[in-house]
């Protein structure tokens, strides 16, 4: 390939962020352009069509499809309540009468003379969309949704589970290499988002759930803990809709890996602020990574971005002296600087020919690493 692809995650002290808040179906937008909103404020609402139930009335009544309509007690569009008769036969001897009851409360959607099937629909389900982040409404799209703009600290994680949540950010460890232990999680963390450390095990996750912590941001986690939490082995990295009462975002990878110092420092600096986090991850073309957004309340803060790393899919040119992290064994998670960038392909231990770079570790040791196995984290 002519194009060096260096995956990286976005990390910014201060960034102007725009979030689309769209309805799943057309509905009503209830804020207007220029409004200032809080993360929990409702910005748009709609009704999702209710569930459809099918009842094969001709089978229930033992009649022919052509006789269906004359045996129906209700017609299309009529309201029904659960267990209300919707059709019945009128035999000569009354004791042979058959009745078909409605399985739900809702309306009759359709009656089919061909299949003898009656479709009933439950009442619509209201859906409300919140602002998710504190900010300003900068655009409204009629019947569809709004765009919220905010100036915030922005950190992308590598993987997450659980959906959108907000809460005050609290750092629970002293260093990015610490393990998050059960005793680090206290009653004061109820309703908050806790962050920091290299790994969290089941006992501490359980404590967080019991305490009512809304979210956890940590360097690494074992696959085992994710399995236990979800109750199944996660096959494909498409997450965000898990019903687990907590959102977990890992910033580095699976296993025990110290959180990148800069990520840790950024979170530490914003401790006490309200953070909006979302664990939704989708690792496919059009990659979605989990996010941590910590808006600034000062509206005058200019949205100048002090951003490092790169958006996924974009090239980040690597130069000698750049700080990088190794993202595959051996030395997974280690930081170093680029010492040289040989242009020729080199044979690595597996005998594969790969584009490589020479990395220098803080202890002065050097190593040859395939370029595919590093990421640029900070400049």
């Amino acid at each position, binding site marked *: *390939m*002519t*194009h060096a*692809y260096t*995956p990286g995650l976005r990390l910014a002290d201060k960034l102007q962020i725009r979030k689309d808040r769209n309805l799943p179906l057309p509905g009503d937008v209830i804020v207007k352009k220029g409004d200032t909103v809080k993360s929990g404020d409702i910005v748009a609402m709609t009704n999702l*069509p209710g*569930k*459809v*139930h*099918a009842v094969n009335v001709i089978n229930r009544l033992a009649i022919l*499809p052509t006789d269906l309509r004359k045996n129906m007690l209700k017609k299309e569009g009529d309201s029904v309540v659960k267990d209300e008769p919707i059709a019945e036969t009128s035999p000569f001897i009354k004791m042979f009468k058959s009745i078909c009851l409605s399985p739900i409360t809702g309306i009759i*959607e*359709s009656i*089919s003379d*061909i*299949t*003898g*099937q009656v*479709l009933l*629909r439950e009442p619509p389900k209201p859906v409300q969309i919140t602002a998710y982040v504190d900010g300003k409404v900068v655009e409204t799209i009629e019947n569809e949704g709004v765009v919220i703009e905010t100036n915030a600290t922005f950190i992308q994680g*590598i*993987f997450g589970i659980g959906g959108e949540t907000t809460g005050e950010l609290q750092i629970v460890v002293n260093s990015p290499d610490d393990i998050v232990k059960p005793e680090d999680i206290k009653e004061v963390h109820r309703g908050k988002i806790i962050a920091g450390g290299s790994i969290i095990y089941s006992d501490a996750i359980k404590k967080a759930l019991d305490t009512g912590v809304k979210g956890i941001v940590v360097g690494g986690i*074992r*696959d*085992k803990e*994710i399995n236990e939490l979800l109750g*199944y*082995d*996660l*096959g*494909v*990295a498409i997450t965000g809709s898990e019903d687990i009462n907590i959102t977990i975002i890992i910033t580095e*990878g*699976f*296993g025990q890996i110290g959180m990148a110092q800069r990520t840790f420092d950024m979170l530490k600096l914003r401790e006490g602020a309200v953070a909006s986090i979302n664990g939704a*991850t989708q*690792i*496919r*073309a*059009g990659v979605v990574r989990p996010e941590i957004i910590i808006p600034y309340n000062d509206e005058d803060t200019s949205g100048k971005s002090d951003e490092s790393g790169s958006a996924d*899919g*974009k090239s980040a040119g690597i130069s000698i002296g750049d700080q990088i992290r190794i*993202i*595959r*064994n*051996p030395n*997974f998670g280690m930081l170093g600087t680029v010492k040289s960038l040989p242009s020729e392909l080199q044979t*690595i*231990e*597996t*005998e*594969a020919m*790969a584009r490589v770079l020479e990395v220098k570790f803080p202890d002065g040791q050097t190593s040859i*690493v*395939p370029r*595919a*196995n590093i*990421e640029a984290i900070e400049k």
Partner: protein
Amino acid sequence: MTENLNVIVATDCGSTTTKAILIEKKGDEYRQTFRGEAPTTVEAPFEDVTRGVLNAFAELEELSGRKILDGEKIITPAQGNTGVDIYISTSSAGGGLQMMVAGVVKTMSAQSAQKAALGAGAIVMDVIASNDKRLPHEKIERIRDLRPDMILLSGGTDGGTVSHVVELAEFIGAANPRPRLGMTFQLPVIYAGNNDAQDRVSDVLNDKTALRITDNLRPLLERENLGPARQEIQNLFLEHVMAHAPGYKKLMSWTGVPIMPTPSAVGEMMQAIARKANINVVGVDIGGATTDVFSVFDGVFNRTVSANFGMSYSISNVIAEAGIDNITKWLPFEIEEADIRNRIKNKMIRPTTIPQLLEDLILEHAIAREALRLSFVQHKALAVGLKGVQKLKDMSESFDRVAEEETLIKMNNLDLIVGSGGVLSHAPRRSQAMMMMIDAFQPQGVTMIAVDSIFMMPHLGVLSTINEKAATEVFEKDCLIYLGPCISLTNSGKYGSQCLNCVITYSDGKKLEESLLFGDIKVFELGEGEKAEIEVTPARQFDLGEGKGQKITKEVTGGVVGLVIDARGRPLDLDGSKGKEPRGEVLSKWNTAFNAYPT
């Protein structure tokens, strides 16, 4: 026009990269000469597929010295070192073509509909059938939730059931599904069922969907007619799916023939090869997210896609489906389960990384074996004869009885296995690819094993539709790398017992005699294109496809790995040596036979 092609440029716009190749007529034969590659630009910030195509062309121009572009215009026809005669392309960008199919009986019309969709290059997200045991509201919810690119509805032989297929149409109508791309467009639905039900289905779906009606894909129980439905799928793929994908309108105006979905083009190639040599072929393309399996047996083509078996995005799913024990059984070293799980999850979340340690490479090869094996199991289950044949009864009666599964894939009659995809095409040693394919597919009798050198089957597939000669010439000369023939038992026996004797007579008259015990696998020298006469005599209880104890004599052609004689039995049982030799040692012995890994 398509007969006088001297210079052809072809691209495959994949999810990640756009690969361009140049094919030129040199003297009397067509050869692939240059190759360029660039990241696909369907996603933001470019959102225009043609940017990536132009970048790939720019690399081709640089390498070949041929001027292909005049600004952003392709120069045609070719004159000297300028221009090309035709530009052709395939595409799987943006997740490919995702479909849902529906039919009345799961193993009959629904299965035929599934075959039609797969053959047209789609990923089948779900198969809805009247008898699939789901309740009506569950079916409706499912249709609404999945958001496919299109739905194929079938059911009923011509003159057969009307009510069941109309019922399915009612479910689709009630779900009111939205297409994946373009919120405001109506979802395309193809009806290819009982022609007596066309008006009724139209009444139900015409207002709610973009309905197309085509010929019944199962007009009789004894006959499938998948062509018209496949054609309609490909038309809608271009009109709806591609037309809504960024930049494709422009790309479509550049190509000399319609853009094909990538798997559909690979399928065309497989059929062309099987047709030309009159052989039975199995092909596999193992990617990062999905694994496609193709087969042509006695002229019958089948394709399946295992949407969640792959080597990066879906690697974790292979373990979830196969079970960790099925992965560790292929490892000749000890490693903790938790360690494997973390390593694999890290590959899943950082799919572009490559194994640097030998141990990691062997682990990925173990996972590839299981991904290939599971995908092949799924393929064999779908590549079956028509159900319901020779039963003179109507469809509703057929609900009660489902004929026994009978796969068309007869391993003993298989002539060629072609492997494609990064883990096979780019394995550091070719012998690794051969081992993976033998272990996963477990061929029987005499089977040639080959790999696609640089993944150009999609390009050649679309080329085969306009010039089969050019496509097959390039396929044989530049695309395929023959690894060698594999001669395998078809049955099993006792580990360590005397199994077979073989005599190999090379073309220079040199003779080699060898005896193999049950559980052995050996690789003999037989270079690419080199021919040898083999005579293999199995012991009384063993079978090489000709019957127990029956000798086989055959002329075989070698490959870059050599001639493999596999006396490990079928099905391959890695616990066969239990109590006699530790599994790790047995695996190491097999690896050594192939000289598969550095020591």
